[in-house]
């Protein structure tokens, strides 16, 4: 009894996912792409970063399946749907979303951050730290029971994580054994000694580390706020999880938006030269000469004015925030396509003088066909390298833009918004550090592994880097 909702960015995310799958299917048949891809898979750093990035992507995808739950109504009457748009992640993490405290509380705390007037059991009132409504509410005596309770819960979760990891490892070895036509124990030994061409051992170890962190986090988060709560009492852990999608969307959709322009214009400029080249060069020099942040700021300002004057275009808050996110991606794309365009133009200029293109032209093959069949495939590695290299910078840019006030919608969960709201709380005593720490940590891990992955991809695809 739900009504699926497809937001703009959701649609684009799944389009991007389809495009990625299509690219891999295509690349598998192309030796000049297949070999570098294999090199990426065979690098240990590449393997580790792929596992971590896959975890982030899984969270982001879960958060991209939106729906509106049905409201409990009278039977017979038509089904009414809630105004609120939820995602599968919201639904899975319902306890996290719904267990809202009054205000700040430290990670794993049982008592609030600030003193309040509380009623004493024997009558009378005193100023003390009140118990949290949800954090550690199951404990009779928090002072004595809290740490034993946390340790038992964490320990159980670690045991489950190990069991889960072991199952995954055995499953992988069984699959490898079946594919390689050898025994299970032989496959296990190969993996463990790092003798497989694809470094499965690194992958499994990374996966194990992730599980060991994720299981206790999930197990504890139902009864505690493992990363504390923010000013209005919302769980910080939940917020950081929600921010993953925003970061991924900014990092990937921006490139998706700019890619068609950059590829088309870059190839056209390099292939046709003459006045086409002049016009396109003028276009990107002009755009490039505008300071990026200012162009984004000006565009976002304008869009705010437009949204304020047309409020009836968006039926829910989520749709509005989503439209703004999409617009931000678009404008970031406009400011960042120039670099790729220039690279592609230069490469096309080189390619069009090569013999096989000259031969194709002599045979009377049409321009469109030459570009599609002969030039575009030879530019793929540049496109791919640019896409992965840009990703981490865009994730970091989101935080800065949100700080400037031209980032994502203030109602949308993002690391930038989290940092921005927590920044002012630094002056408090004791300091409210957990929101900042959570946002920076999750962002750091994503960007670090994205950087490592980008390096691997560049080393594998860049013909100059080949030794």
């Amino acid at each position, binding site marked *: 009894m739900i009504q699926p909702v497809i937001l703009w960015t959701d649609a684009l995310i799944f389009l991007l996912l389809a495009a990625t799958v299509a690219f891999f299917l295509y690349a598998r048949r192309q030796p000049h792409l297949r070999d570098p891809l294999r090199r990426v898979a065979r690098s240990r750093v590449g393997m580790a970063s792929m596992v971590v990035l896959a975890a982030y992507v899984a969270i982001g995808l879960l958060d991209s399946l939106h729906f509106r739950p049905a409201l409990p109504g009278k039977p017979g009457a038509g089904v009414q749907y809630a105004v609120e748009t939820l995602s599968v992640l919201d639904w899975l993490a319902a306890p996290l979303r719904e267990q809202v405290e009054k205000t700040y509380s430290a990670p794993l705390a049982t008592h609030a951050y600030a003193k309040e007037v509380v009623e004493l059991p024997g009558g009378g009132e005193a100023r003390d730290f009140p118990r949290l409504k949800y954090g550690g509410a199951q404990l009779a005596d928090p002072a004595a029971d809290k740490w034993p309770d946390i340790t038992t819960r964490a320990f159980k979760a670690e045991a489950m994580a190990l069991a889960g990891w072991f199952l995954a490892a055995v499953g992988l070895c069984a699959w490898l054994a079946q594919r390689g036509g050898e025994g299970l124990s032989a496959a296990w030994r190969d993996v463990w000694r790092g003798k497989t061409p694809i470094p499965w051992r690194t992958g499994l170890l990374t996966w194990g580390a992730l599980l060991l962190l994720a299981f206790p986090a999930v197990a504890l988060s139902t009864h505690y706020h493992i990363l504390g709560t923010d000013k209005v009492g919302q769980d910080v852990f939940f917020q950081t999880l929600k921010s993953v999608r925003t970061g991924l969307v900014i990092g990937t959709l921006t490139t998706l938006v700019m890619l068609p322009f950059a590829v088309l214009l870059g190839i056209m400029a390099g292939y046709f030269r003459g006045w086409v080249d002049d016009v396109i060069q*003028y276009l990107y020099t002009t755009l490039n000469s505008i300071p990026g*942040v200012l162009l984004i700021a000006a565009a976002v*300002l*304008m869009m705010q004015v437009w949204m304020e004057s047309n409020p009836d275009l968006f039926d829910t808050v989520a749709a509005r925030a989503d439209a703004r996110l999409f617009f931000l991606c678009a404008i970031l794309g406009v400011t960042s396509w120039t670099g790729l365009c220039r690279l592609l133009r230069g490469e096309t200029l080189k390619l069009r003088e090569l013999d096989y293109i000259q031969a194709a032209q002599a045979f009377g093959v049409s321009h469109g066909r030459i570009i599609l069949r002969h030039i575009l495939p030879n530019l793929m590695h540049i496109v791919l390298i640019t896409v992965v290299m840009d990703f981490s910078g865009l994730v970091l840019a989101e935080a800065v833009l949100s700080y400037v006030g031209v980032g994502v919608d203030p109602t949308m969960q993002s690391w930038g918004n989290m940092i921005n709201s927590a920044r002012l709380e630094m002056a408090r005593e004791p*300091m409210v550090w957990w929101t900042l720490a959570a946002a*920076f940590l999750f962002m*750091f891990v994503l960007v670090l592994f994205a950087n490592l992955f980008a390096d691997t991809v560049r080393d594998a695809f860049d013909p100059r880097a080949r030794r």
Partner: protein
Amino acid sequence: MIAYILRRALYALPILLGVNVITFVLFFMVNTPDDMARMNLGVKHVTQEAIDKWKAERGYDKPLLYNAARQGARKLTDTIFFDKSVGMFAFDFGRADDGRDIAREIRHRMGPSLAIALPVFAVGLAVNITFALVMVFFRASYLDFVGVVLCVAMMSISGLFYIIAGQYLVSKLWHLVPISGFADGLDAFKFLVLPVAIGVVSGIGAGARWYRTLFLEEMSRDYVRTARAKGLSEAAVLFRHVLQNALIPILTGAVVVIPLLFMGSLITESFFGIPGLGSYTIDAINAQDFAVVRAMVFLGSFLYIVGLVLTDISYTLVDPRIRLE
């Protein structure tokens, strides 16, 4: 040379015009002069006369881009776009929404911006190159590996983290320098130390790694082999030959940013309360002051183009093989 610079200056005109058109269209696509008047007059029920008066006072009582009522060239010149853009090209930026002269503000705020941006640039360059040289000197050793890992980790940390952590540690815990603010003259020093240090540190990751690849590329050249073959020590090869030759791409790459230093840093300035151009821009963005944003966009583009021309000239200065036609 002079002919070349003149030609580049002429080539810059259409680009600046394009920049102006883009910002102008961006703004007036969603906003009419009537909206602007209403927003600035700020009253709920503004009469049409008041709006017309506001528009006439500020020269917004004309068509935007094309005036069909006029004859000949006046069709294009008697418009808001022409009026506002001609002023820009003469560096007359007009007035901000609060009535202050933008050009005067810019002149006043350039100093503090440069006081941060210039040391960050110079010290940053020196520090990055030093780190890169150390890594290259010990290349393919554990020191090099640790250095590269450190660089990747450092460039993965958000710039905001450096600022927040720096302010917390240095100003709040250790009470070494004030958290934010600015003073004229020599007193400015204590306000500038922390932002400059943070600016340098946050740039090390990306910078040192970039220079490292640059040096490594240079190390594979023939002259390096020759230098080694004639028995020079590795240190002499690195510091006397490689460093000097690598300075060409380093210098020409740095020249393009120098003019943009005037624009200041948006984030650093607003975090540290420094009255420079960066914080001016942020304030304008938050106050939706279009006149200021537009002036800053124009200034930024102009400085970028100056940077490109300077880069070309610096190529000819450091590399005699290149001549400007």
